[in-house]
C-alpha cells in the first residue's frame, strides 16, 4: 500500500511539473509600450498602447502603424485585417513577437470604450489629439 501511494505521489508530481512547464511556456505578458520597448522580451508578448495618428499604412490583409504610450513610440506590423474600429488614437492591444525594432503582431484587439476599460484605469492619454493630421 505504501509503495502504491508513493507511485501515485510521484505521478502527481511529474504531472504537476509538466503542467508548470506548459504554463510557463504559454504565459503571455501584457505590457504598456514604454515597458515593452525597454524589455524587448523574447517570447510572445502583448503590448497595449494607442495608435499614433497619421501612421496607419495599409488596411486589408496587413497594416503597419506606430503605437504609443508613456511617451514611447514603437513600430508595429500586423498580419491580417484590423477590426472596423481600428483608427487613429484607438486603444489597441497587439500580440506577437519582436523582430528587431519592429513588433510583428498576428492578433490585434481594440480596447473598447468606457465599459471595457481595464480595471486599474490605465490610460493612454499621451495620444495626441485625433485632430492633428490624423490619417
Amino acid at each position, binding site marked *: 500500500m505504501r509503495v502504491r501511494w508513493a507511485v501515485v505521489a510521484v505521478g502527481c508530481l511529474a*504531472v504537476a511539473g509538466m*503542467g508548470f512547464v*506548459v*504554463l510557463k*511556456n*504559454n*504565459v*503571455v*505578458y*501584457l*505590457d504598456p509600450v514604454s515597458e515593452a520597448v525597454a524589455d524587448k522580451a523574447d517570447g*510572445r508578448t*502583448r503590448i497595449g498602447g494607442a495608435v499614433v495618428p497619421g501612421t496607419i499604412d495599409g*488596411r*486589408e*490583409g496587413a497594416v503597419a502603424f506606430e503605437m504609443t504610450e508613456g511617451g514611447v513610440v514603437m513600430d508595429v506590423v500586423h498580419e*491580417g*485585417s*484590423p*477590426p*472596423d*474600429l481600428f483608427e487613429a488614437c484607438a486603444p489597441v492591444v497587439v500580440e506577437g513577437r519582436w523582430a528587431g525594432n519592429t513588433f510583428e503582431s498576428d492578433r490585434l484587439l*481594440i480596447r*473598447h*470604450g468606457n*465599459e*471595457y476599460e*481595464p*480595471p486599474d484605469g490605465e490610460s493612454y492619454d499621451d495620444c495626441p489629439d485625433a485632430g492633428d493630421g490624423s490619417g
Partner: protein
Amino acid sequence: MRSALGYLAIAVGTAGSVLGIATLGAGLHLRRDSLLRAGRRYVGVVFVAAICAFAIMESALFAHDFSIKYVAGNVARATPGLYTFTAAWAALEGSILLWVLALTGYLAVTTWHFRARATDPLVAWATIVALGVTLFFFALMLGPANPFEELSRVPVDGTGPNPLLQNHPLVAFHPPMLYLGYVGFTIPFSFAVAALITGRFGEGWLADVRRTTLVAWAFLTVGIILGAWWSYEVLGWGGYWGWDPVENASLLPWLTGTAFIHSVMVQERRGMLRVWNISLVLATFCLTILGTFLTRSGVVESVHSFSESSIGPWLLAFLGVVALGCVALISWRADKLRSPGRIDSPVSREAAFLVNNLLFAGFALVVLTGTVFPLLAEAFQDRRLTVGEPYFERMGVPIGIALLFFMAVGPLLPWRATSGDVLRRRLLVPAWVGAITLVVLVVAGADGVAQVVAFSLGAFALTSIGRTVVIGIRARRRARAESVPVAAVRMVRGNTRLYGGLIVHVGVVLVAVALAASQGYVVKREVTLTEGESATVRGYTLTYLGTEIDRSPQKTTVKALVDVEGLGEYAPAISTFPNSRGGIGTPSVHTGFREDLYLTLISSPNETGTVTLGVQVNPMIVWLWIGGGVMVLGTIVALIPARRRSRVPVTSESPESPDSELVEAVEVAT
C-alpha cells in the same frame, strides 16, 4: 416609490434570513420541534421577498423609472421589450437579484420537498446553511450592490444595456440558465455541511440531494452550451470557446460537479470515497462563488466584464470564510469520515470511477491554475499577463481523451472485480469498432493525432453503449415476449438512472467529436470584394451584392449582402449603438450537418465600395449543440423516478453455464 418598495423587499428578505437562521438554531439547541417547524416558514418569507424585489425591478424597467440608478444605466426608451426584460440581469446589482431569486426558489422547493422531515436536524442544519448563503446575497444588495439605489437627478432617458446584451435574444436564456446551475449547487453544499455538522455522513444525505445536483448540473450544462452558442452566433469571432476567465469559471464547477455525480455512485454502492464526495460538493460550491467573483468583480479582463464593482472584496471574503469553514469541518470530522469499504480490484467499476474522478479533478486544477495565475502574478509580481490558449489545449486535450476512454470502458466493468474473460467478451466488439475506425481514418489520411484518437474513442464508446442497450433489450425480449420498442421503453423506465446516464454519454461523444473536428479542421480566410465581385473559398462561391443599412433608435446596422452559390443570400452585419463607440459584429451562418459556412463583416464598405469579409468553414459544429441537447435529454431521463424494478428472472436453462448475456444484462442494470 418603487425604489423604497424594492429596498423594503430586500430588507424583509435579509430579516427573514436572519430570523429563519435564529429560529432554526434555537430549535436545534433547545431541541424544540415547534421552533424547527416555525423556522422553515421563513424560507417562504424569503422567497416571497425575492419575488417581490424582482417584480418591482421589472416594473421599474418597463416603466422607465429613471430615478433608479440601475434602470437609468441599463435601459433606454428605445430599448425593445425583450431587452428591457432581460436588463434585469444586464448588470451586477440586477444579476445578484436574479441570483437570490433562483437561490430562494431552490430553497423553497427543497423545503417543501422535505416538509415531512422538518424536525430532522440534518434538514434543519441544511436549511440554516442555505439561509446563511441567502443572507449573504441579500446583505450584498442591502449595502454595496443595491439594485434600487436612487439618482438625485433623474435623467430624461437611460443609457440602455451594454450593446452585447441587446443584440441577441439568447441574453434571455444564457445567464438565467447559468445562474440556475451555479445556484443549484448551494443545496447539495448545504446538505453536505449539515451532514458534517450532524455527523450523519452515511449515504442518506447523498440520496437527499441527488436530484437537485442533477438539476443544477443540467442547468449548468445548458448554460455553458448556450454560452458557447452565443459566442459563436453573436460575438462573431468564429469560435465558441476562448478559455476566457469567465468561461473557465463556469467550467470549473461543472468539472467538479460531474466528478461528484459519478463518485456518488461509488459511495452509494460501496460506502467508499466519503471524504472525497463531501470535498467535491464543497469545492463545487466554492468554485461557483469564485466564478461569481471572477465574473462580477472586474478583476479579470474578459468579454464578460460588463460591470466593475465594489463587491469584489465581499465575495472574496465570503469565499475565504466558506473555504476555511469547509476545511475546518472536514478536518474536525476526519477520523469519523473514514470509509468502511476499499477497492478490491483495479479493474472494476469503482476503480474506473476513481480514475474518472482524478481526471476530472486534475482537469479542474489545470483550468483553475490557468485562470487565477494572471491574478496572482498581478497581485504578487505586479505584471499583467494572460495564459495563452495553448496551455489549456495542451493540458486539456490529453485529459479529455483519457476521460473519453474511461467513459467508454467504465459502464462495462462490473463492480468489485472482473475476470479477464468477462472483460474480453464485453470489450471485444467495441474495441474492434474503435480499432477499425482508427485504421480507416489513418488510411484515409486524416490529420491530427488528437482528432483521430477522439473519433476512434467516440466510435468505441458509442458501440459499447449500443451493445449495453441491445443486450438489455434482448434479455427482456427473451424473458417476456415484448416487441423491441416496448422492451426498450420498459427497460429505460426500469432503470432511468443507468439509461439516462448512457444517453448523456452519447451526448458527450457527439460533443467530443464536434470539438475535435471543429478545432482541427477549420478553414479561415479573409476576402475583400467590390460590389458584384466573387470569390471562392473551399468550394463556396461568394458574391458581394451590396450593402443595406437599417436604422432604428436602438441601433444602426450595416449589412453586407452576400450571395452564396446554391445556398442563398447571407448578410453578415456590424451594428453600432448610440451608447457605445464600438461596433458589434453579427455573423451570418449557414448551418449544416457536415459543416458550417460562417461569414462575418470585418470592415464595412469604405469610399471605394469594397468590403472585407471573414469566411470560415467550421466542420461539424452543429453536433456540439445537438450533443448538448442529448446530454440534457439524458439528464431528464435520469431524473424520472424509476418504475418499481421488474427484474428479469435469471433462470438460465443450463445451470452449469449461465447465459452470459443475461447475467450481464442484470448485472449492468443493477
